[in-house]
């Protein structure tokens, strides 16, 4: 019996020839990540409760200061300090200070730290992002992370795999974000609960790596354990100058077993949003066009990489943010910010009247720099819009792609980007 990519990676980690869905395995981890909210509890549990003095492999751990950093208040400064001290004391090689890293899920891929065929865990639910690079990557808690840091191993239940086949190509204006919002709308926020989402098909061949990361990033919004994609020329090229270790890609066997196969015609997917207050509340853009907004946020590990910012800038070029609304743009990493500066994108944003911030998770989780008040309406390029996610429980959050967000900032209401920009230049589509 054949195995899926996810099963093969877990079998290798567990030192077994094969595994089946439902098996509980103890598997070796290739790379682990924690940040300023999850390292302090994990470090405390590891040292004070588990009694471990050092971590299993300082070269295979990354730590980012991203959630409440630069510190939003005195208490988060303490969390930042604990994170910094733990990283220094443990000799963690991939420590990213404020102003040098950014959001974990952008920083790890752009630094070539999470690679094909690997078993990756992160103490953050969006750690599933890395799976676009043909690895098994999943989010874990702080006690889990303490276990991995101490032992280099962790228990896993081998998930059933759901296969998503995307035929044809996405239409003009329609982005990977729209596709994944549509899919989550179809299967629901628990549609892939504890399962693997394997994405494949012709449409993906035409989707670049950053947009693929947007898709696997949102696997958790369908409840999935991981999202994973095949290795191809796009993966190889992305990693060529980045990969920090040799790697071995993995493929699903032709006779691998899937719990279910979903087929979608990518060409039929419309530009869309997730309406308040759930990521599976999908609606075509036409249904919500004209909705009055208070804030537009372009940021997060989902949609604030350089390709996202290029599309936002193309829409904003020679336009102004509408009176009565505010646009906040938060690059997802320091490298993204440097590149945006080189390309003149920041000038475009500033000229349009947008607030440009340092790289941080910031407003996405209602942390700082864009927290919503009671009754406010926000269009956001982020991943999650459950009640209270971005601030007040009675704030309303719509999720969209960056071009829609930029156009909506210009109009002050939810707007199709074609109403602001005649055509998205082919080279940045």
């Amino acid at each position, binding site marked *: 019996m054949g195995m899926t990519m996810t099963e093969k990676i877990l079998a290798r980690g567990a030192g077994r020839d094969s595994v089946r869905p*439902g098996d509980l395995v103890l598997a070796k981890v290739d790379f682990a990540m924690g940040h300023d909210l999850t390292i302090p509890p994990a470090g405390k549990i590891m040292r004070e409760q588990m009694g471990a003095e050092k971590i299993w492999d300082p070269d295979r751990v990354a730590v980012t200061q991203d959630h409440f950093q630069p510190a939003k208040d005195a208490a988060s400064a303490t969390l930042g300090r604990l994170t910094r001290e733990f990283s220094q004391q443990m000799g963690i090689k991939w420590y990213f200070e404020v102003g040098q890293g950014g959001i974990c899920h952008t920083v790890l891929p752009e630094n070539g730290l999470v690679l094909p065929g690997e078993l990756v865990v992160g103490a953050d639910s969006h750690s599933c992002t890395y799976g676009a690079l043909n690895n098994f990557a999943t989010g874990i808690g702080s006690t889990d992370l303490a276990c991995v840091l101490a032992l280099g191993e962790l228990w896993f239940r081998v998930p059933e795999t759901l296969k998503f086949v995307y035929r044809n190509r996405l239409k003009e204006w329609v982005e990977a974000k729209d596709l994944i919002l549509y899919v989550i709308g179809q299967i629901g926020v628990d549609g892939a609960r504890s399962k693997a989402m394997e994405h494949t098909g012709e449409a993906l061949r035409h989707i670049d790596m950053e947009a693929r990361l947007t898709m696997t990033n949102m696997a958790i919004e369908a409840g999935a354990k991981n999202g994973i994609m095949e290795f191809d020329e796009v993966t190889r090229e992305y990693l060529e100058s980045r990969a920090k270790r040799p790697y071995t890609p993995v493929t699903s066997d032709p006779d691998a077993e899937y719990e279910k196969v979903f087929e979608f015609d990518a060409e039929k997917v419309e530009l869309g949003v997730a309406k308040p207050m759930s990521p599976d509340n999908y609606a075509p853009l036409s249904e919500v066009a004209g909705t009055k907004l208070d804030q537009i946020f372009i940021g997060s590990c989902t949609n604030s990489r350089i390709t996202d910012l290029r599309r936002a800038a193309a829409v904003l070029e020679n336009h102004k943010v509408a009176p009565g609304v505010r646009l906040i743009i938060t690059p997802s990493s320091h490298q993204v910010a440097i590149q945006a500066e080189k390309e003149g994108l920041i000038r475009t944003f500033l000229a349009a009247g947008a607030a440009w911030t340092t790289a941080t998770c910031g407003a996405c989780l209602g942390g700082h720099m864009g927290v919503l008040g009671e009754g406010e309406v926000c269009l956001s390029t982020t991943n999650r819009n459950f009640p209270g*996610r971005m601030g007040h429980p009675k704030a309303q959050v719509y999720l969209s792609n960056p071009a829609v967000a930029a156009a909506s900032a210009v109009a002050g209401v939810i707007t199709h980007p074609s109403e602001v920009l005649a055509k998205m230049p082919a080279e940045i589509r």
Partner: protein
Amino acid sequence: MTLPKVIRGRAWKFGANIDTDQIIPAKYAIYSLDEKELGKHAMEGVPGRETWAGGVTQGDILVGGSNFGCGSSREIAPVAIRGAGISLVVADSFARIFFRNAINMGYPILQSPQAAEAVDEGDELEVDLEEGVIRNFTKGDEYRAEPFPKFMNDLLRMGGLVPWVRQQLAERRRSAAARG
């Protein structure tokens, strides 16, 4: 810390897809190392439950709907619920990271669609963790919980992942010493 065999308490009822930001809004993540403080704000993000934590009696039981604890990986979600005084969470189903976190903490949870459907707020419940049976004294009903795989049960019984890791580290030290 070992688990009690039987837990008794009054039920608090919640709906489907209660996510971690509703269980403990992210702004309280600054109290990540303070279970009591987190407990004061548990479930505060659920509309209508802003002051819920203040009404919990130590030992009460939380009954949730499907996909309970979806969203973030923050372990402060089960920590906050425990900090509020809840002795056990029963749900129709759990989101996977919440489920892992609870097991890893040695915090008892049970999956029982039957109980999630039938129990009303305020019902007096008795839960036999070993038998996986939930008795409802108010209604005179009895519900089954779905059994966990052996490894998860073992983890729960021994008090979670911490004692398990301590065992593993001790074994590694022994074998390293034996190799000299």
